[in-house]
């Protein structure tokens, strides 16, 4: 039986990480360029393949063929280590995200851990090491400033990121992402309690703290993934390219891909926690329990629903990037420590009071 489990896990890792997430990363780079072009009344890359869809492939080939240049003044070991340390944690977090319900009798999650969100936060915060090492090893001023900014930013927003989902965990009393999704499938999504047990005064009242935690979570996610309006670690106008100024070719590509992978996993986590993961609205095609068998085509629809939601969320990420100006650094820190930290804490207390009152 052991070999079967190992084989299934290997297939899931290969499919979900290398055949789904990485192409999704490439496609989101393309989407970013096309959507930003459309927002600015431009055309965007439309030459390679139909509608420019093969542009990521061309970019990848370009990155691979470029000279892999290592400047003389860098600390070589850490300089080489940093891009991998940015990319790997982003991909590791795929492990606990439930991509779908069940297919061929297998749960569509690589590791069905009982500490899902904790694992994601623990591993995702490792990305900061990659950025710090990149800035330190580059031995030059702009990367250094970028990495210092990034460190303080990530540490500040990690707190509110972690605290923001505590209300959710209190309400569901569960840390297994698969169970949270099942709960939402049966009783209404966290932000859309319109069916099952969610369709009650309790469900509606509890959606108030859930909405607050969604706002805090999403904003902290933007900060954690270093995207506008919080892209101070690499803001082009001040720091050239921030922490990856000294990097070129595939090493730069790893930073770039790591950032987008983090964005996709972040979207996946937001969808799983707040928008019912792979479930369809109004409890359609919902299995009876987590372990119940699911017909083959239901499983496929669930996978499709998850990715549709994730893609919509990524589009939201992109639209926000091209809408908002960058924060000033003191504003960023104030927002993190003075507003979001307190807001998340107050939200935990509010949820506790609501749960006590509604018991």
């Amino acid at each position, binding site marked *: 039986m052991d070999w079967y489990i190992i084989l299934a896990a290997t297939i899931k890792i290969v499919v979900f990480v290398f055949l789904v997430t990485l192409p999704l990363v490439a496609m989101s780079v393309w989407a970013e360029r096309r959507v930003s072009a459309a*927002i600015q009344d*431009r*055309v965007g890359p439309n030459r390679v393949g139909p509608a420019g869809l093969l542009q990521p492939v061309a970019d990848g080939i370009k990155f691979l063929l470029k000279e892999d240049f290592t400047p003389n003044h860098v600390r070589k070991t850490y300089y080489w280590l940093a891009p991998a340390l940015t990319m790997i944690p982003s991909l590791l977090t795929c492990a606990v995200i439930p991509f779908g319900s069940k297919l061929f009798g297998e749960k569509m999650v690589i590791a069905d851990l009982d500490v899902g969100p904790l694992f994601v936060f623990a591993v995702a915060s490792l990305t900061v090491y990659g950025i710090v090492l990149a800035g330190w090893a580059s031995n030059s001023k702009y990367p250094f400033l970028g990495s210092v900014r990034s460190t303080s930013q990530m540490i500040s927003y990690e707190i509110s990121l972690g605290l923001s989902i505590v209300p959710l965990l209190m309400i569901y009393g569960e840390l297994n992402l698969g169970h949270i999704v099942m709960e939402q499938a049966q009783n209404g999504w966290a932000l859309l309690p319109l069916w099952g047990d969610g369709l009650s005064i309790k469900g509606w009242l509890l959606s108030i703290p859930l909405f607050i935690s969604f706002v805090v979570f999403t904003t902290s996610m933007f900060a954690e993934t270093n995207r506008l309006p919080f892209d101070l670690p690499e803001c082009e106008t001040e720091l050239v390219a921030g922490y990856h100024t000294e990097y070129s070719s595939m090493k730069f590509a790893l930073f770039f891909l790591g950032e987008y992978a983090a964005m996709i996993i972040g979207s996946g986590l937001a969808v799983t926690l707040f928008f019912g993961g792979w479930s369809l609205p109004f409890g359609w095609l919902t299995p009876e329990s987590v372990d119940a068998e699911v017909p083959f085509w239901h499983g496929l629809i669930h996978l499709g629903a998850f990715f549709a939601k994730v893609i919509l969320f990524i589009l939201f990420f992109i639209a926000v990037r091209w809408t*908002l100006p960058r924060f000033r650094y003191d504003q960023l820190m104030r927002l993190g420590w003075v507003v979001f930290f307190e807001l998340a804490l107050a939200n935990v207390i509010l949820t506790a009071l609501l749960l006590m009152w509604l018991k």
Partner: protein
Amino acid sequence: MAIVVDRPKLKWWEHLYLPALAKGLRITLGHFFKMLRGNTKVTMQYPEEKWDANLPDHYRGAPALVTDEQERERCVACQLCEFICPPRAITIKPEEIPSDDKWAKVEKRPKVFDIDMIRCIYCGFCEEVCPEQAIYLRKDYAITGTSREEMVHDKEKLYEIGGVRVGLVNKWNALK
């Protein structure tokens, strides 16, 4: 004197930042969907669409040599264009027309006529100065090549671009 600009006093809901986000998203997504519906006028897709039909009559493209209606090369190798050419793109080597030739009375013709299109600045002085109206600026603008040699237009190439021009100068016609 320094002018102090007062910061606007924000309402409490303006401090929330979320209404501003919604407002901004309305603008950006408005542009996005306008583009999706195809209502945005965007730049010309160059190799597929070209500006050719809209080129004005006075457009100055690649210079070229022309022949007249009797297939005589109009150029008499007077070298005025070579002399006037500001970037010295034109090289002419004249030769005498042998006396048994049909056009022996013209006396001179270019043996070599090269225009270096890397040097040419499309000023049109050659066309202006030519007493025989033998050189014209055509509307070709996409002059490309993969080597410097390829970018030098020789006589055949110039006549190929130029083609035939009828009328204009009649002094060499048989009647006169």
